[in-house]
């Protein structure tokens, strides 16, 4: 089976869970003899990562200015998109991310043999992207839609698969051009990112993609409910495929030698944005520190709330117990997991939430918010409402004081083995087959 896949992130160009998920899934699909052409908006040339052909949309863009104009006019009419758009990141956050990416370039060792390529790629990317991920995202999305149409003419494929709203238009255009079935994959919705007051244009684009798709994949039942209830999609059209977890790449670290021997480390790792609930983590940390001294809190990541949280932390006078690491590359991220004693994911709204599973690879207890998709898969972990900082604080204390509390008959590892990306890939293949058999 041949799949034309549209994505916005792919290693080594990752800002969050989307790129990781796309990589994990496509790697396993490829093992199951699915040939994937993965299209990113912004790389030059073509690379091959773990058997997946990754091509850049921009190669096609500049020759086709007329098409782009037409497409933009069409879009404005058809779905009334007018204002500036924003994906997962605000412009400043994204810029911060790009800067960090440049600093930690060496950390991305997914494709060692292409170090040279990726260096030049990321340089050109940072130039081309300046502005594009901020106010001008709409034109970016539009251009990508044109790419979709052009590729549908040139490439040979059976199914189209588009990841998240930035690529939905491209997917729909490819479908129009080719008549091949379209699967849209919802990793997150505007409802998750911004609550009920999200960007209407993005909502419209999401809805447009879902309505024009043959099948929709959501990463959790929680997200399926949103797709059905908020976007008005028939439930039969939606299949749930939970994300998997990559069990390779465990960082070897001797905890006995770590610098904070006397202290337990409680970890938050993710973008520092409203959706992820970092402020609840900080407030809970403060409550814990009022009762307990031998504990440290680490907040890893970057995002538009960083400055606000640093200021709040300083105000609380817990600078000797609460640490910010900034954006981390792959190796440091794994090292931090290995150093930690408890992982907390306090997300306000999390379609899935891969990081608790990554934490579990290091055999540490986790506390997750009830407002996360991954909670559906984990029966024996502590779940709290993201807003309940008192419950979160007392849970942290409980786990730290009684590590046995979270022990179950099944080890973390056994649980994780059932969440292999292979299972997810098989479910995705079933969705493809369903689409094809219907024709």
């Amino acid at each position, binding site marked *: 089976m041949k799949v034309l896949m549209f994505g916005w992130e792919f290693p080594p160009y990752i800002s969050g869970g989307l790129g990781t998920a796309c990589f994990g899934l496509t790697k396993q699909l490829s093992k199951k003899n699915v040939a994937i052409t993965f299209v990113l908006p912004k790389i030059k040339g073509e690379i091959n990562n773990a058997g997946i052909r990754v091509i850049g949309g921009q190669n096609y863009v500049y020759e086709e200015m007329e098409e782009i104009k037409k497409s933009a006019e069409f879009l404005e009419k058809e779905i009334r998109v007018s204002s500036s758009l924003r994906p997962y990141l605000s412009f400043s956050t994204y810029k911060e991310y790009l800067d960090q990416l440049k600093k930690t370039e060496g950390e991305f060792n997914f494709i060692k043999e292409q170090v040279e390529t990726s260096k030049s790629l990321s340089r050109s990317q940072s130039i081309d992207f300046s502005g594009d991920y901020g106010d001008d995202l709409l034109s970016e999305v539009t251009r990508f839609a044109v790419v979709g149409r052009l590729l549908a003419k040139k490439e040979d494929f059976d199914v189209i698969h588009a990841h998240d709203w930035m690529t939905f238009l491209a997917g729909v255009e490819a479908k129009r051009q080719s008549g091949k079935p379209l699967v849209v994959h919802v990793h997150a919705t505007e409802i998750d990112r911004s609550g009920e007051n999200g960007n209407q244009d993005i909502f419209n684009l999401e809805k447009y993609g879902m309505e024009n798709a043959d099948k929709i994949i959501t990463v959790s039942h929680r997200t399926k409910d949103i797709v059905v209830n908020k976007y008005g999609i028939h439930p039969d059209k939606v299949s749930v495929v939970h994300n998997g977890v990559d069990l390779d790449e465990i960082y070897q670290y001797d905890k006995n030698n*770590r*610098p*904070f021997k*006397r202290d337990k480390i409680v970890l938050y790792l993710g973008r520092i944005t409203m959706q992820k609930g970092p402020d609840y983590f900080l407030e809970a940390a403060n409550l814990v520190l009022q009762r307990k001294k031998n504990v440290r809190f*680490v907040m*890893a990541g970057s995002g538009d709330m*960083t*400055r606000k949280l*640093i*200021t*709040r*932390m*300083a*105000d609380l*006078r817990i*600078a*000797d117990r609460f*640490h*910010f*690491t*900034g954006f981390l590359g792959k190796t*440091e991220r794994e*090292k931090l997991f290995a150093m930690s004693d408890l992982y907390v994911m306090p997300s306000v709204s999390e379609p899935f939430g891969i990081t608790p599973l990554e934490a579990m690879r290091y055999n540490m207890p986790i506390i997750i918010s009830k407002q996360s998709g991954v909670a559906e898969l984990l029966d024996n972990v502590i779940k709290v409402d993201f807003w309940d900082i008192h419950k979160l604080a007392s849970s942290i204390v409980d786990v730290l004081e009684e590590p046995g509390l979270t022990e179950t008959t099944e080890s973390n590892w056994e649980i994780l083995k059932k969440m292999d990306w292979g299972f997810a890939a098989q479910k995705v293949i079933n969705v493809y087959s369903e689409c094809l058999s219907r024709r």
Partner: protein
Amino acid sequence: MSVSVCFYFQVHQPFRLRKNYNFFSIGPDHYYEDDKINREILYKIIEKSYIPTNNLMLKLIKKYNGQFKIAFSISGIIIEQLEKYAPYVLDSFRRLVDTGCVEIINETYYHSLCFLKSKEEFKEQVTFHKEKMKSLFGVTPTTFRNTELIYNNELAVEIEKMGYKTILAEGVERVLGWRSPNFVYYPSVAPKLKLLLKNYRLSDDVAFRFSNGGWPEYPLTADKYANWLHAVAGNGEVIGLFMDYETFGEHQWADTGIFKFLEVLPEKILAHPDYCFQTPAEAAATYPPVGPFDSREYISWADIDRDLSAWLGNPLQDSALDFAYSLEKPVKESRDPNLIHTWRKLLTSDHYYYACTKWFNDGDVHKYFNPYDTPYEAYMIYINVLNDLKLSLRDRGIDC
């Protein structure tokens, strides 16, 4: 009726911290300073400012045969950097002091804010600096100026008790009221002490505005400036021109004409028969104080606010200061001179200046002097370093 012009120059450079001192450095990595950056900046300043300015000052002192006088306050940590990287610059300062026309002023060795937090630490740092001046230049200072001209009544009392004769402060209007900064005052609570004030308008005309093309008085010539100084005659006795020494050649580059300006300035000033140059100590001894100077609030020479808000007041700065001084007792308990020295270097006021979030107007100046990208970055690096220091103390079995 004579008028004395008092030049006092601040010579100081901090030990900047490594920008890559991150969370993972805490524990394994006890080296905090960015040697490369510090060395590079030092050499740049030496070449652009210290050496050419020292040479010019020496030339002027010789030329005017005792009539041209200046004063320096040289922080302990710039001296340590010069001792390490450029001892010939110290020789050059020594030659200046040896002329007898240069007064050496006392300050806190580490250019710190310690008076705000620990009187004990303050006395120690002042004493260190005094001893360092004695050993380097063979003089015992009788004039004191606190870091960044930070001053209040309480400080004056302490300085009087410590036996100083003269203290320097900013001529802040909200304290002076209708009165002029161009006289000798005494601290309201320490009447034995003489107080000399900075005339900030005339000082900043040189230090900040000299090369500002947008300034209506641009370009500032020595003739024009001397006229302004001469206008004080009849309604003032002392003109305190206090500024960073790096003004010459570094803040105002050589191509702005700052050195030519300085070279002819004494001649222009001395053209008026009532005008002379005096060091702060001499001026304080010459003129009887005209009245009390009463400041319960802290004042300083920084920014347009002339208070502590360049270093303190936002949560980042306040938390950093609290954290640093919470380590005083345990650090001293270690009795390890290296560790104590390391901690003290972290008390330097610049670390707090970098975490200032006042961006408007003054922000530009802050940014110019700030090696870090944002105040948040500066703060986190500083906090990481303090965390490592605290961890080392704990590893030595010291409770903290």
